[in-house]
């Protein structure tokens, strides 16, 4: 009845070993099919790698595919909580799915560790003691992009994002830090694949740079068409638009683009070096931002297991809050609303041999927190 993990095969699939008192059962609901599947696969693989490396035999991971459908995710959460009795839920990629699952899950005495989505509601008034975000608040990378634009001397940016809440948050976040003029502001349709009309408007505007947030396939389409249009304004975006999963499909169109991220393959710390190496060895591909988030999420959970038994929820929560793990992004701690306080870097897309990847070229924001923490009463 339980769908077990693929990828690493049955060995990693279910760690059903000696259901000892300290054992912990994790339900991972993530996107493994459809347009967003690349993100979910990376989060899953990063997470399972960390679990494997811990050498612990008392962690059971049940992986389920939410198909990027909110109602499927809710159903899976109900089953994992009511029928499988999981202690920790994690894995959701998309904010709309997180909003559908997280509020009712944390109210049923389950911990939720977010490896990707960070909707503003859950960071502000809707924060919860059982909810920890190990990635970022949704606005963070966009805020950093705005800050970078100031520093890079751009004063007339053209900005665009899809017309949905995360897209609107992206532009709001960007404008919160960006101080220049806006040469234009556009909302595109969600799932749009042809950006000719938008690119024409960019061409006709007096912009000196373009900031865009178009996740997944939308970003791939936009980048290819932009490169072909002959418009050569510098591109800036959040790391999602230029990460390892995207670059392969975009090709050299992305070369030179700047993007902001809390993680990069070339971050210089021991945990990251070991992670990048072992991920490549295990899966034969470069890790992405999402893989690093999945890896960090598992390590946070394991660090808490070393200090407390999950059956004692208060102690386990306290252990999570300490964030006593070696993060791939270097320094990492939680703010009062259980969202990260971390540095956000500026990266540039470069060619390494014949593989497109990112290189850090600076820091956009240091010890950055989010704009909603003040609304969180916890």
């Amino acid at each position, binding site marked *: 009845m339980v769908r077990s993990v693929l990828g690493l095969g049955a060995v990693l699939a279910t760690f059903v070993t000696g259901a000892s008192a300290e054992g912990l059962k994790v339900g991972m609901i993530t996107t493994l099919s459809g347009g967003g599947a690349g993100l979910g696969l990376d989060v899953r693989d990063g997470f399972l790698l960390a679990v494997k490396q811990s050498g612990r035999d008392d962690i059971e991971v049940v992986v389920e595919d939410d198909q990027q459908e*909110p109602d499927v995710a*809710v159903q899976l959460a109900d089953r994992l909580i009511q029928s499988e009795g999981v202690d920790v839920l994690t894995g959701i990629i998309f904010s709309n799915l997180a909003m559908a699952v997280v509020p*009712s899950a944390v109210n049923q005495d389950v911990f939720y560790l977010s490896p990707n989505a960070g909707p503003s509601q859950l960071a502000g008034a809707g924060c919860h003691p059982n909810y920890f975000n190990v990635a970022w608040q949704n606005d963070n990378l966009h805020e950093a992009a705005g800050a970078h634009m100031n520093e890079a001397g751009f004063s007339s940016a053209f900005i665009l994002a899809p017309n949905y809440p995360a897209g609107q948050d992206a532009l709001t976040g960007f404008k919160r830090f960006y101080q220049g003029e806006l040469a234009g502001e556009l909302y595109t349709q969600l799932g749009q694949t042809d950006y000719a009309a938008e690119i024409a408007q960019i061409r006709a505007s007096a912009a000196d740079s373009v900031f865009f947030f178009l996740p997944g396939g939308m970003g791939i389409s936009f980048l290819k068409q932009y490169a072909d249009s002959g418009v050569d304004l510098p591109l800036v975006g959040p790391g999602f638009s230029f990460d390892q999963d995207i670059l392969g499909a975009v090709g050299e169109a992305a070369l030179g683009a700047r993007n902001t991220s809390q993680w990069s393959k070339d971050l210089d710390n021991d945990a990251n070096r070991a992670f990048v190496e072992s991920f490549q060895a295990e899966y034969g591909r470069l890790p992405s931002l999402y893989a690093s988030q999945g890896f960090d999420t598992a390590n946070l959970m394991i660090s808490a297991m070393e200090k407390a038994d999950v059956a004692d929820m208060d102690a386990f929560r306290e252990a999570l809050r300490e964030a006593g793990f070696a993060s791939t992004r270097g320094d990492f701690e939680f703010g009062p609303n259980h969202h990260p306080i971390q540095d956000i870097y500026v990266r540039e897309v470069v060619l390494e041999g014949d593989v497109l990847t990112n290189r850090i070229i600076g820091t956009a924001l240091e010890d950055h927190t989010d704009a909603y923490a003040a609304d969180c009463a916890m």
Partner: protein
Amino acid sequence: MIRERHLNALVLGALLALPLWGFWAEAPFMITLATRAAILALAAVGLNLALGLGGLVSLGHAAFFGVGGYAAGILALHAQSFTPMMTWPITIQGTTSMPLIWLVAVVASALAALGIGALSLRTSGVYFIMITLAFGQMLYYFAVALPAYGGEDGVSIYVRNAFPGLNTLRPLPFFAICYVLLGLALLLSWRISVSPFGLALSAARQSEARVRTVGIEPYRLRLVAFVISGAITGLAGALFADLNRFVSPAMLSWHLSGEFIVLVVLGGVGRLLGPVVGAGLFVFLEHWLGGVSDHWMIFLGAALLLVVLFARGGLIGGLTAGSRS
């Protein structure tokens, strides 16, 4: 071979027995599954009225399901945040009372069905299929572009809405509500099918000209049937919103419209309990086949193809072959 009447009793009994067993065996997820089946069945009972009785192949019924769902989500959202839905010309407050929400959901989805039906029923056959699909997509994009109600993200209902005298937060009472509503809808659907209206509708499906000659306008018959059908599916949408405690544009997607048709056909088109059997089978396949393979949709597709090509009466047709009562 079994008589259809006996089979019907068996089906309704099984749908009741599963959650009761789940309650007794402390497997609350069984109750959730049965509730899901009951709600999908309710939606399909609505569709079956248009599809089975009226012969109207609507590929846009998810639109009504979604309208009902959004009615529930929006009313609950305003009640939870204590903000009025509108202040001019009159003040309207949100509510968390299920009966009131159902009323709004039924009226709203009936109105949507009236608008879409009035235009779509001017055409027939394959035009009708494509147009209902296109209008469904239009409402889908409208919901995606509704920033006040979450757009693509949808609306979360933090606490399930209330029904006087019952604790709807517990799985079993909520199942009971859905089961009773399904029963009432089946009763209504049966009454309609044997009423003069239903007989005329059925006759219009078989021969439009024959109905015309006795002075009945098929357009109006079909429009009435389409509106009732949309309203029942809308009610199911409101229940679905409460089951998931969440509404999103995915409820209006054309894939769901396709799946509703699949539910009706798997069970048997035009059979009273076809939708219930179909929904039960679908939830079963989704749950167990999904456990077997990540690519379970291939098997679902293949199974569906086989049913369409070789077993046209659906499951009920197969089980009751030759002894339709």
